[in-house]
C-alpha cells in the first residue's frame, strides 16, 4: 500500500444557504481546495462525491459528475457515495484506497448536503423498515443508549449537557459554525424535550454545507503543498447486527477505532485532537469510550474534568462539532477532516490545539437492529 497525503481542503460555513442550490453550494469549496493544493482541475485523477438526502429532497441522481464538471473536472472516474452520516468519510476512504492501491495518484472528495428545507422531518433508517414503522426515529435510538448509559454507569443529565456546552464554547471560535452563542447546562436541560432524556440542545441541528479534501500519493504531495498531512489510517466498518446486542458499550464503534489504532501503530495517548460524531450529546460520550480516551462507562465523568475542552489533555470537537455547526449529512465526515488538517497545519486560529501532531476523526451513520450501519475512523498526522 502506498502512503497518501491530504494536500488541500476547503469548506463552506455550515448553516442556511438559501440563496444557493445544492450544486452551487458544492463548487466554491472545490475551487478553494484546488487553489490551496496548487492543483489544476486536469491534475485530479478521480472524484468521490457524497450526499445522503439530495436524492430524496431534490431528485438528485449522480450529481457528483455535474458538481465536478462545474469545477473543471471531467473524463476521470467519478463515484457518487451514500453511506448515511458516514457518506463523506466513506467517500474519503474510497479516495484514500484508490491512491493507496496505486489506481490513481490524486483524488478529490466532495461532501455536500442541503437540508434546511420545509418539512424535512426526522431522519430515520428508511420508511419501509419495520423499526421505522414501529416509531423508531434516530433521536430515540440515541435516547435509549443514553438511558442505558445512565442506568449502567451513573452518567447524569448534567454530564450529557456538558457536551453541548463545551462544543458551543468551541464553536464561538469558529466562524464557519452555524451556532456560536454560548449556552449553559440549564439552557440544555430546559430546552424542549425531543426524546427523553435528549432535549433540543442535546441534538444536532440541520444545516446546509459542503466540504472538500484533495488527496495525493505521498511521493508527489510536495509538488502541490509545503504542508502535506499524512493519512495514517482509514477504516470503514459495518455493524454486527447480532441479536441480542447491547446498546452500551458500542462494539462496532470500538472495533472501528481499534482497527485504526492498529493500522496507524498508535494509541489513544498519541492523539492530540479529535473530531467525533456528536450527533447527540450521548454520542460524544460513547465515542470517548470507543476511542479509548477513557474506560467504558467513564465518558460522562471525562467531559466533566475538562479534558476534552480546548486547553485540556485531549480536545474533542474543537470545530464546535455537529451540535454547533449542524449536520449536513453528506458533508459532515469531510468537514471533520478539514478541521483536522487545519489543526495539524497550525491554521485553526483561536481554536488551535498547540503543537497538534496526531488527529482522529470518528464518524458513525445509520441505524439497523440497534447497531450502526457504518462507522469510520480516520487518523491524520504531520509527517
Amino acid at each position, binding site marked *: 500500500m502506498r502512503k497518501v497525503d491530504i494536500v488541500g481542503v476547503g469548506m463552506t460555513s455550515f448553516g442556511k444557504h438559501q440563496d444557493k442550490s445544492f450544486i452551487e453550494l458544492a463548487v466554491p469549496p472545490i475551487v478553494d481546495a484546488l487553489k490551496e493544493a496548487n492543483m489544476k482541475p486536469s491534475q485530479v485523477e478521480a472524484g468521490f462525491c457524497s450526499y445522503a438526502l439530495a436524492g430524496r429532497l431534490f431528485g438528485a441522481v449522480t450529481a457528483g459528475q455535474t458538481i465536478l464538471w462545474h469545477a473543471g473536472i471531467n473524463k476521470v472516474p467519478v463515484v457518487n457515495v451514500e453511506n448515511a452520516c458516514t457518506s463523506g468519510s466513506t467517500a474519503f476512504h474510497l479516495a484514500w484506497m484508490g491512491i493507496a492501491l496505486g489506481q490513481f495518484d490524486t483524488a478529490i472528495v466532495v461532501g455536500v448536503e442541503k437540508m434546511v428545507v420545509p418539512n424535512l422531518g426526522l431522519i430515520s433508517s428508511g420508511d419501509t423498515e*419495520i423499526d*421505522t414503522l414501529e*416509531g423508531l426515529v434516530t433521536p430515540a435510538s440515541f435516547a435509549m443508549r443514553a438511558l442505558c448509559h445512565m442506568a449502567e454507569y451513573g452518567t447524569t443529565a448534567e454530564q450529557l449537557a456538558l457536551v453541548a456546552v463545551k462544543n458551543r464554547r468551541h464553536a464561538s471560535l469558529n466562524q464557519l459554525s452555524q451556532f456560536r452563542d454560548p449556552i449553559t447546562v440549564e439552557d440544555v436541560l430546559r430546552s424542549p424535550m425531543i*426524546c427523553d432524556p435528549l432535549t433540543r440542545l442535546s441534538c444536532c441541528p440541520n444545516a446546509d454545507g459542503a466540504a472538500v479534501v484533495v488527496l495525493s500519493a505521498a511521493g508527489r504531495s510536495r509538488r502541490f503543498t509545503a504542508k502535506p498531512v499524512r493519512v495514517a489510517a482509514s477504516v470503514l466498518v459495518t455493524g454486527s447486527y447480532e*441479536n441480542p446486542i447491547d446498546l452500551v458499550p458500542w462494539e462496532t464503534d470500538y472495533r472501528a477505532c481499534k482497527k485504526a489504532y492498529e493500522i496507524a501503530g498508535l494509541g489513544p495517548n498519541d492523539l492530540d485532537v479529535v473530531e467525533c460524531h456528536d450527533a447527540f450529546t450521548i454520542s460524544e460520550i460513547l465515542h470517548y469510550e470507543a476511542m479509548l480516551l477513557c474506560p467504558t462507562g467513564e465518558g460522562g465523568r471525562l467531559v466533566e474534568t475538562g479534558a476534552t475542552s480546548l486547553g485540556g489533555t485531549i480536545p474533542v470537537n474543537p470545530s464546535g462539532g455537529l451540535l454547533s455547526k449542524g449536520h449536513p449529512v453528506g458533508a459532515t465526515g469531510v468537514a471533520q477532516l478539514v478541521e483536522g488538517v487545519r489543526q495539524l497545519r497550525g491554521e485553526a486560529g483561536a481554536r488551535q490545539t498547540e503543537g497538534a501532531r496526531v488527529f482522529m476523526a470518528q464518524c458513525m451513520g445509520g441505524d439497523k437492529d440497534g447497531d450502526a450501519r457504518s462507522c469510520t475512523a480516520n487518523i491524520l498526522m504531520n509527517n
Partner: protein
Amino acid sequence: MDEPVRDVFPGIFEDSKNPRLIGGHCPGCKRKFFPKPIVCPYCLGPVGATPLSREGVIYSFSIVRIKPPFGLPQPYPVGLVDLVEDGLRIITLLDPLKTEGLAIGKNVHLMVEPLGVDAGGQTCLRYYFTPV
C-alpha cells in the same frame, strides 16, 4: 363493505385478538430472528416462520415528544424489548396511553390494535407492548 384493516407490515403478526409476532427460525442453526429474514444469514439455508413470545421485558426506551411519524399519537414511547423465551431483543412501539412509569426491567406484553397509518398512509393494525 369496508376493506379489512391492513397489518402495519404484511405477515409481521398473526391473530390480532390473541396476537403473536411472527419471527424466523433456522432449523440448522437453531437461531431465531425478528423479523423473519429471507434466508438464514448464518448458514444461508431456508428459514421457517415461527410465532414469538407475547411476553417481554423492557431493555431500554424513550418517549418521542416531537411531531410523530405514521399518524402515531403525540407523545408515544418506543423501546427495545427482550423476548426472554426467544432470546431476541426487538425494537417496538410501546403503549402510547402508558408513557408514565416506564422503566428498564418492566414486564410488558404484546397487543395489536388499529393505530396510526402504514407506509402507504392507510389506517393499519399495529403491534405494541404494554406494561403488565
